[in-house]
């Protein structure tokens, strides 16, 4: 019985090593998208999204992707940190990290682990310290919430900024495009005796 549990846990640990933790995923991303995306780096064994029950709804999604080999997982992580990887939308890149055991919701028990609990009453000498700890924990929770909000605000700001930039850029591009399209550029070129080529530059922004 014991050895079975230990084997199970060892297998789980190995799985953790092979898994990549992705976040900053758009809500539109589905399992198949993730699969096809990461297939270029190796065989994807499974994709699991981490459900979000408690955080604000506009948080980006996270997922755990289990690759076949640990090496493949490492390759994924290193590529994604070098180049911004886009999934179902741009330009917010997907972030990849090595997975940790605590990220798995239904992880098996660690064998040989003992949990011990103890009730403290008000008369106990440690009760006050424990109450202080409780308050500290609550305070930390609020701090975390504030931090999260702050982060989301920052992200929004950046996105807006980029949106502006994009619009401006696009306008410029459109302008150039339309000029090219309706022949205004050619006419002007003839006026100024300049040669102008007809091809429109490559743009992946559509």
């Amino acid at each position, binding site marked *: 019985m014991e050895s079975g549990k230990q084997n199970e846990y060892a297998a789980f640990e190995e799985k953790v090593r092979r898994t990549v933790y992705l*976040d900053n995923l758009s809500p539109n991303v589905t399992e198949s998208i993730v699969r096809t995306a990461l297939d270029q780096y190796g065989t994807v064994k499974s994709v699991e999204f981490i459900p979000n029950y408690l955080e604000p709804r506009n948080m980006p999604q*996270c997922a755990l992707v289990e690759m076949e080999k640990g090496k493949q997982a490492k390759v994924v992580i290193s590529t994604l940190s070098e180049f911004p990887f*886009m999934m179902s939308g741009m*330009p917010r890149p997907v972030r990849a990290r090595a997975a940790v055991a605590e990220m798995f919701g239904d992880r098996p028990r660690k064998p040989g682990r003992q949990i011990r609990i103890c009730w403290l009453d008000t008369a106990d*000498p440690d009760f006050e310290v424990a109450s202080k700890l*409780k308050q500290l*924990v609550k305070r*930390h*929770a609020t701090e975390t919430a504030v931090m999260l909000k702050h982060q989301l605000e920052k992200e929004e700001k950046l996105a807006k900024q980029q949106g502006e930039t*994009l619009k401006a850029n696009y306008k410029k591009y459109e302008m150039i495009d339309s000029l090219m399209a309706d022949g205004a550029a050619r006419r002007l070129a003839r006026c100024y005796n300049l040669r102008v080529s007809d091809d429109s530059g490559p743009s992946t922004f559509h």
Partner: protein
Amino acid sequence: MSHIREKHREEKNLGFKWGTSIRGGAKNSDIMFYESFIFKGEEYFVYDCVYFDLGQPEASIGKLVKLFVGPDHVKKVKVVWFMRPSEIRNYLGDYEPRWNEIFLASGHGRGVSNINLVESIVGKCNVVCTSNDHRNPQAYSEADLRRADYFFCCHFDVGELAISDTFPDMVDRVKVEHFFNKKTEQKLLGRINLKSNVKRQTQRPNLSSKIKVVTKSNGVTVKDDNSGSRVSSLVKESKVEPVSMTKQVHLPSENIPVRPKTSNSNSSTQHSGSAQCEARDEIDKAEVKFPKDPLTSPDEVQPYKKRKLFLDERTNDKVHNFDGQLGHDRGINIDNQLVQVSRVPDDDRRNWFEQQPWEQRLERAQESGSLVSLENVDPSYTSEEVEDLVWHAFNEKVEAKMIEQTTFSCPCYGKALIIFKSKEAANSAIFQLMKRCLMLADGRPLIARRESLRKGAKVGFVGHLTVDKLQLQRQTEDMKKAKSTSHASQPNNIEFDMGMEWRLLQLQSDMWWKALHERQAKEIEAVRNQLKMKWQ
């Protein structure tokens, strides 16, 4: 180890036997008081110190002051307690107790004495009083003190919550003299004082006959002289006995053949006469006591083993009542002590899989008000462990799910969602956790809160930009595919630049989360170091 267990089972069947009763000791004639009883092969007398197993990890030590049986035929003992230093650590002040020092409970109030069942007695305890009180016969030696399990020289007054070394006249209506060391002549009837036993006997002139009698019982005849060396060898032998660690019942018979070896048998002087008969009678009595004392000594030398066995047996019984596979047997619920949490039976858990999927269960739980979030859990716990924990703490079977750690969860905290079976159960658990503290072994108090799932429409994802809708119509199939294909962008377009800006923001956020978590961890450490009890 297994044959000890067998020994216990045998002795349990040995049953119980009352000794002589005390006449006129009862206020009403329904209760019979006794002077002694035999339990599990040992004879316990009034004013003996014994170990009790009351479910605490350490056995409690008490002095039997009354042995009686009531009209309900339940055998009871009234016990005055000795306190361990750990139990009164708040009130010790500057006093530094020795490792085997205990304190007699005195005064008026809770904790001085109470009535217990005979069955909770585990074994005898050797307690020596080293107080300099004039009523205390200083009839103990250094060796006695060393051999004793515990000693006490102070008492703890439960009313004043203080220790003192001047003893009052009465402790719980019992004369304090009974708590001090016994007078010499009672020692023969008492437990260990083999040395004094031997001394008394060696004062008899017919030492050789003694040896002869004793060894004769085994069919080995020994002849030797009356010499001083015999005394010392005998004394040596008897000293060896209590220290021996053999666990067999027939200890005396084993050691007796040893004696003839060390004592050089030579002469065949045999003393005859009435003196010998007298001596023989005395010695018979002594011999009867002899085998008994070695019996008690292994008990006392290994009280811990016995206690552990006891606890193990009890937990085994408890565990076997459950169905299902249980890998470890642990766990008795006790207040104020660290308890280990054992596994909840599996078959109950299996039933829950037939129910609806997790999200639906969450929503239903929230509607019925039984959704609770348990915070400050060790993040490495699994959902099953949380379920076991809640079951042990509140005796409620629940469903738990550990919330996974994400990029911004502090690594020192874990959180779990718990679905209770009913709103009342959830309420009572929250209330209990608010009033008292449930601490995990590493010094974390658990916090519970009513939780509500975040509802609301999915706001759009921040950061994915699209151009104006008009342009969308112009997109060709290829363009659409280009957008939706996941790719790593190359550094030749605006997408790359923007992507890098996002990466920058992500790294920044990583850093500030890390700083926050580190600070939080430090704050927690600082407060945890104030905990007095030893947590891991």
